[in-house]
């Protein structure tokens, strides 16, 4: 039993100390930057390290106590203004906190903290003290006998006891010039001339619960409690289940429509939604959790490299799911290191370039379009596209033709390509074997994207876009051999329907490997049924192809049917199944059944999609070369549709979805036609009206209307067309002859003339106001 208590106490010690040490670092950095009152920082830092010392002393970890004590001594000299704060001292104190942190990690891992040697550090701290003044040395003797009063070892209330001991150390008798101690024993009368405010404040805090005493902020609220992550996960689980049950009830109620039941059911509905939102919220952490490490990193690195840097952080309060936070920690750190190492020049070079000697590193976090954007920008030398393109050519990552065709932005983004390591730049700071391709794959693993933009001489900006949460993701449900599988929307590019009667839309073979010609490029295909050993061979030729991309590999998955898109709750897979490498998790569908979530990257790996890729790329390359001779054209992806006699083209990047709705579901709101769509009201615009088509095609109540869903001014808007033709990716020249109000011009795609729609002008035409910001 004693061992259990001991273990629990050690665990508490580790958690609290690590938090305290992080706060300690923050105080030190603030002190160095001359933010606020130095005394405040010193006092807080002192209290944190004192707590670490006290509690580890209680548990008998003498080495920790000794190191903490040395740091505390130095701090007390600073606090009492016996010596002044300079960079060397701060570095020493930060090293002290590092050492303590290392020992805490040792404790956490169950090994003895004594294995870490700190002779150097102790010597350093000692030296710093000596270089200040020697008085405080005498404090040592008092403390050595202090550790481990038995009653404090079992009760966390022991914190106060050590507070009592502290003044003995600080009121070093031979330092008459020094200001009085800040923390006298609560019971004894205050020594000679204390600033009374400080005393009462400290007494108050000594009496407060330990959580308040050690947490980061000086006024940490007592209303917070520590909850185990597993507990929250369990809650989350139950809420997910409640949502399923709620959905079933709603469905049943809809069928029966019993008015007496409706009220309570609506209430259950609302409460469940709210409950889900609040539980989700408890899992959220602010970006600050990751960023708090960066001031220290920036300071240490820039000193090491002899650079000058200011770090600004905006949007620290942006919240993310803790799993996401965990996953972006390493990529973010890597990017920040990269920026300091390669991005920002040394002061001399900056001066030469006419910039201020101090470089700027800016971290920004904000919400955009249901995602969180993390931006890391510096005002350094930027990435030179010429160099990158040369390197990429050397390594055969791109062809000469591509090199001339790619925009600078595309070229710069090649740094995320696997196998692109600018070895000549490797230093011990960022050349640690983790390339930018790892950054990308880590970000993609959580369904995010990363992009870089750079202006030579002006700086580089990295943008990471990540989903708010990993627990619930949008996914496409497909069917294969009677089983349902979920494909995360993040890896989904498009859906293609095979048509055996049309040779342009059917499977062809390259040495046993099925491929599809898709907009002039060959796409490798993988039959999901075969890949999962569900069947030997595909029978039917009319299949759906789900075009997916993972880790830079693009391929088509053949499935029997595409069912629906759904927000799914991701559940971890049993370890036995993880090693299969084909599934990323499992989820529970609306009917209570379990469906597996496909791991697209894993599937590609299992099926040697990688090996195929080179051959296919070579083929595609030839086609590209043939296509890319003429100039003055831009490459566009277009969705072609028909409206009466007109062929119209939508720019594909503006299109969210394509839907078929019965004409009867259109309702009116004022002068506008609207549709209830995914729980919101969606305005509808008839493209025929935009084109000035006089004879609108009147359809019967049960006829299906084709709708292209686009984002117009932040509104989901449905554009009504007659039929969808195809998708093209072509190099086209857009030409304008007249001033048609909704068109951007005319072009030739697929051998026929089409009108390119201008979505912004359509928004004008429809009289849409910009959507209020912040709504989703």
């Amino acid at each position, binding site marked *: 039993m004693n061992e259990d208590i001991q273990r629990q106490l050690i665990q508490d010690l580790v958690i609290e100390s690590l938090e305290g040490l992080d706060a300690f670092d923050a105080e030190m950095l603030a002190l160095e930057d001359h933010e606020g009152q130095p005394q405040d920082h010193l006092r807080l830092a002192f209290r944190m390290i004192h707590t670490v010392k006290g509690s580890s002393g209680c548990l008998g970890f003498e080495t920790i106590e000794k190191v903490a004590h040395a740091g505390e001594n130095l701090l007390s000299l600073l606090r009492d203004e016996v010596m002044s704060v300079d960079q060397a001292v701060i570095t020493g104190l930060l090293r002290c906190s590092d050492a303590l942190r290392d020992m805490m990690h040792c404790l956490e891992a169950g090994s003895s903290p004594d294995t870490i040697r700190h002779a150097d550090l102790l010597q350093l701290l000692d030296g710093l003290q000596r270089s200040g003044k020697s008085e405080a040395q005498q404090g040592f003797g008092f403390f050595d006998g202090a550790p481990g009063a038995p009653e404090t070892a079992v009760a966390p209330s022991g914190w106060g006891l050590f507070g009592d001991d502290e003044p003995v150390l600080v009121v070093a008798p031979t330092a008459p010039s020094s200001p009085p101690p800040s923390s006298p024993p609560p019971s004894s009368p205050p020594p000679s001339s204390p600033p009374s405010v400080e005393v009462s404040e400290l007494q108050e805090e000594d009496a407060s619960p330990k959580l308040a005493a050690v947490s980061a902020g000086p006024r940490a609220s007592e209303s917070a409690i520590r909850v185990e992550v597993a507990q929250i996960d369990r809650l989350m689980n139950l809420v997910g289940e409640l949502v399923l049950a709620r959905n079933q009830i709603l469905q049943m109620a809809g069928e029966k429509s019993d008015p007496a039941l409706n009220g309570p059911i609506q209430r259950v509905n609302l409460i469940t939604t709210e409950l889900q939102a609040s539980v989700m919220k408890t899992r959220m952490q602010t970006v600050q959790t990751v960023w708090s490490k960066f001031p220290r990193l920036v300071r240490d690195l820039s000193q090491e490299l002899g650079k000058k840097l200011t770090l600004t952080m905006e949007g620290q309060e942006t919240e993310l799911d803790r799993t996401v936070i965990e996953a972006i920690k390493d990529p973010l750190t890597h990017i920040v290191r990269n920026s300091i190492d390669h991005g920002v020049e040394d002061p001399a070079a900056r001066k030469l370039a006419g910039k201020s000697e101090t470089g700027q590193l800016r971290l920004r976090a904000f919400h955009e379009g249901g995602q969180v954007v993390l931006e890391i920008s510096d005002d350094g030398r930027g990435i030179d596209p010429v160099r990158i393109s040369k390197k990429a050519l050397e390594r055969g990552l791109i062809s000469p033709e591509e090199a001339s065709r790619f925009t600078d932005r595309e070229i710069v983004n090649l740094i995320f390509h696997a196998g692109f390591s600018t070895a000549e730049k490797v230093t011990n700071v960022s050349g640690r074997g983790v390339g930018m391709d790892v950054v990308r794959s880590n970000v993609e693993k959580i369904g995010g994207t990363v992009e870089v933009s750079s202006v030579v001489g002006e700086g580089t900006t990295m943008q990471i876009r990540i989903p708010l949460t990993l627990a619930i993701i949008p996914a496409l449900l497909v069917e294969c051999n009677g089983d349902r599988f979920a494909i995360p929307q993040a890896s989904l590019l498009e859906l293609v329907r095979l048509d055996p009667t049309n040779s342009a839309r059917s499977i062809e073979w390259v040495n046993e490997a099925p491929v599809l010609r898709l907009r002039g490029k060959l796409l490798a295909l993988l039959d999901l049924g075969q890949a999962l050993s569900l069947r030997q061979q595909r029978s039917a030729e009319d299949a759906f192809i789900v075009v997916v991309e993972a880790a830079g590999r693009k391929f088509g998955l053949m499935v029997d049917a595409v069912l629906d898109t759904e927000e799914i709750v991701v559940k971890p897979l049993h370890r036995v199944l993880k090693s299969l490498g*084909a*599934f990323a998790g499992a989820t529970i569908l609306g009917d209570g059944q379990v469906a597996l979530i496909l791991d697209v990257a894993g599937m590609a790996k299992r099926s040697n999609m990688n090996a195929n890729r080179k051959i296919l790329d070579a083929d595609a390359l030839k086609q590209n070369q043939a296509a890319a001779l003429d100039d003055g054209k831009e490459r566009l992806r277009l969705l072609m549709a028909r409206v009466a006699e007109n062929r119209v083209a939508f720019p594909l990047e503006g299109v969210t979805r394509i839907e078929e709705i019965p004409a009867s579901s259109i309702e009116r709101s004022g002068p506008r036609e609207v549709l209830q769509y995914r729980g919101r009201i969606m305005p509808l615009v008839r493209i025929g009206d935009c084109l000035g088509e006089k004879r609108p095609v009147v359809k019967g109540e049960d006829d299906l209307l084709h709708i292209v869903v686009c984002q117009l001014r932040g509104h989901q808007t449905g554009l009504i067309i007659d039929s969808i033709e195809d998708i093209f990716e072509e190099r086209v020249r857009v030409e304008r002859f007249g001033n048609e109000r909704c068109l951007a011009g005319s072009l030739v795609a697929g051998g026929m003339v089409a009108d390119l729609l201008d979505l912004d002008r359509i928004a004008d035409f429809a009289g849409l106001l910009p959507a209020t910001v912040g709504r989703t």
Partner: protein
Amino acid sequence: MQYCTFYLDNKHFGIPMLDVQEVMLQQVLSPVPLASSVVRGLMNLRGNIVLSIDMRRRLGLPETATEQESIQIITQGPSGLVGWMVDQMGEVAELDPALGEIPPGTVAAASRELMTSVFQLETGLLMVLDGERILEMEQECNEIPREIAREGARELV
């Protein structure tokens, strides 16, 4: 000590009661492609995903001739919930572990390594499976290739 007993292929088995979380009637199983044949599929237990293991296949017993409604004994394994699929539940038996005998060496290897002891009951023999081993078993379930599991079954037939 209490044992939760069940039947497989008309043989009487038991596992320590403390290892059992609950017993469920057969649920809808979603098969897991590529996994070993011992893995019958996944099922939903109040929002938790349970890995279902076919005990007949695991113990190398012949497949059931008729597709009957089977029963899942749910245990909390080291890496998640596991459901052990059995033919039928038996009584809860209160037995003195000291009375258990070592399983004879002639028992097929696949099942012998999982057995801790055999009790002589009035109604027949009760083969007690090792609770700890049964929880560890899930790790091996992936390692038994389909063919071997099938062959093992054939030998016993």
